[in-house]
């Protein structure tokens, strides 16, 4: 079967499942309400509404918080991707189909990514509000959104892998959340150790470290290497986890 047609068929089905459930609307509403409230508070707290101040007092912390909120959101969005298929034995239907395992994994990933981008897209209204007031540092905005998208990609791969481990969506969500939180808390380990090599190692493994580069608008090539290697590693784990069902 044509690689892209296979992915498109399954992604379309996944998206209709997402939009057919009230969960997505509740999560999107809650998420944007929280981000809107934070935006309002940062704006009120900013004393001088200059270009520099708006970036450092409003947008950088706001994007940082959006990244943090996705830590809670992604486990809920990804929890059903494989676990429910396992629970209702529909995964067997996919395995017996003409879809390859890669197509199955990528279609699930793509559906999760598109739904996350749908939720994220509503936050664009906040930089636009600032834009109407004369804010024009769009480079930082684009770079931060790019950082957020790449963060979401790493979170989703973890969610996809955890979902492939269990038939229970709650367990899948909790495992993903613990893993992502652990990855975020690695920053504390970085601060605690004085050994240079360990410091650099943990720093590299910690996802927020890479996001920070994007939020400052200075993207390094190792940030992209991290995202790619992280995605490949979790794709491999997910693939092995799914294969193990046949053993």
């Amino acid at each position: 079967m044509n690689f892209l047609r296979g992915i498109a068929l399954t992604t379309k089905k996944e998206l209709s499942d997402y939009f057919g459930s009230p969960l997505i609307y509740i999560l999107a509403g809650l998420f944007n309400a929280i981000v809107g409230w934070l935006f309002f508070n940062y704006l009120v707290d900013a004393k001088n509404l200059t270009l520099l101040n708006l970036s450092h007092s409003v947008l950088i912390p706001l994007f940082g918080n959006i990244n943090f909120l996705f830590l809670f959101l992604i486990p809920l969005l990804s929890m059903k991707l494989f676990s429910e298929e396992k629970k209702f034995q529909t995964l067997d239907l996919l395995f017996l189909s003409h879809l390859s395992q890669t197509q199955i994994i990528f279609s699930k990933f793509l559906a999760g990514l598109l739904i996350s981008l749908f939720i994220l897209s509503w936050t664009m209204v906040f930089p636009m509000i600032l834009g109407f007031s004369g804010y024009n540092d769009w480079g930082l905005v684009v770079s931060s959104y790019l950082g957020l998208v790449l963060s979401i990609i790493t979170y989703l791969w973890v969610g996809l892998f955890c979902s492939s481990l269990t038939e229970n969506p709650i367990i899948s969500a909790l495992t993903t959340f613990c893993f992502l939180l652990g990855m975020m808390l690695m920053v504390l380990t970085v601060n605690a150790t004085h050994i240079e090599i360990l410091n650099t190692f943990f720093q590299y493994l910690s996802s927020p470290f890479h996001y920070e580069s994007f939020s400052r608008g200075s993207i390094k090539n190792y940030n992209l290497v991290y995202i790619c290697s992280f995605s490949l590693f979790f794709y491999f784990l997910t693939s092995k986890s799914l294969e193990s069902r046949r053993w």
Partner: protein
Amino acid sequence: MKNAIEVKNLTKEFAQIKAVSNMTFSVKKGSIHGFLGPNGSGKSTTMKMICGLLVPSAGEIFVGGLKLETHFDQLKRRIGFLPENPPLYQSMLVGDYIKFVAGIRGVPSSKVKERVETILVQCGLEKVRDRRIGNLSLGYTQKVGVAQALVHDPEVVLLDEPTRGLDPEAVDEMRKLIKELKGERTLLLSSHLLNEVQNLCSEITIIKEGQVIQNGPLSEIRSLFQQQRVFKAEVRSFNEEVYQAFELKFGDVLNLDYEKKKELEREEYFLNLKMPKSSDYRSEVCNFLVEKNCGLLSFSEESIGVEEIFRLATAKDVLKESVLKESLL
């Protein structure tokens, strides 16, 4: 006739527990083959291995002459599978689901619509095509399960307990559907309803504790298990005098017992005759009953049912065919 499925020395171990052990059997092309066994005997595991969802620990599977292990991608197109719990997306509409399955099972885009229509009609699902699968009755749910197994027009169809939990009317409809498929395709049917297997299947495989106990045409297995021929006769009158005369004439070779029953205000007698497999005394017995003016109403042979075969074959301490034959002789 060629074999559609050949299973050779198949073994499956789960954490050192043998679910299937050295299983060998074959299914003829174009036949409906019954796959029987008690709960936990390895039926579902075997079916999952035949369709490639589980990898065997040892042994070989051939479908249409091709080795499953090496031609899995090719054979996926030729196998349809209805597991014990049909793989259904509860939130989807029946029509959308069948269309989705047709798409992922490689039906060309130009033929999807036509194929979906055909399968909806064939499985009697036209009325419910716009209903959510989660809202369907169990009978319709099973039919949707069968439809997904057939939508890509496979040569070999594996049905694991297709009538599980269905009411008699739904069982009848499912049986009709399975009968319609006969000839076009090869069907391997696992079921607990032995009467259903008797009605549908020409060949059966009985397994127990992951091992094949019996495999072959139903008539052959029936004759193996049938120790003697049993006949039932209904007569208007019968008494001790006639019984004594019968014993005198046939006592050495036939065994007779009778009971009196009242049918619609009139007395009737039911005779139960047993004779050796090798001899045939039917005409002699009928002539005797006519001569004695017993008023013969009916005379028929009682063949051993699949239920009895299953009970004998899966009885404790009966695992090997040789042991079984010895125990019957």
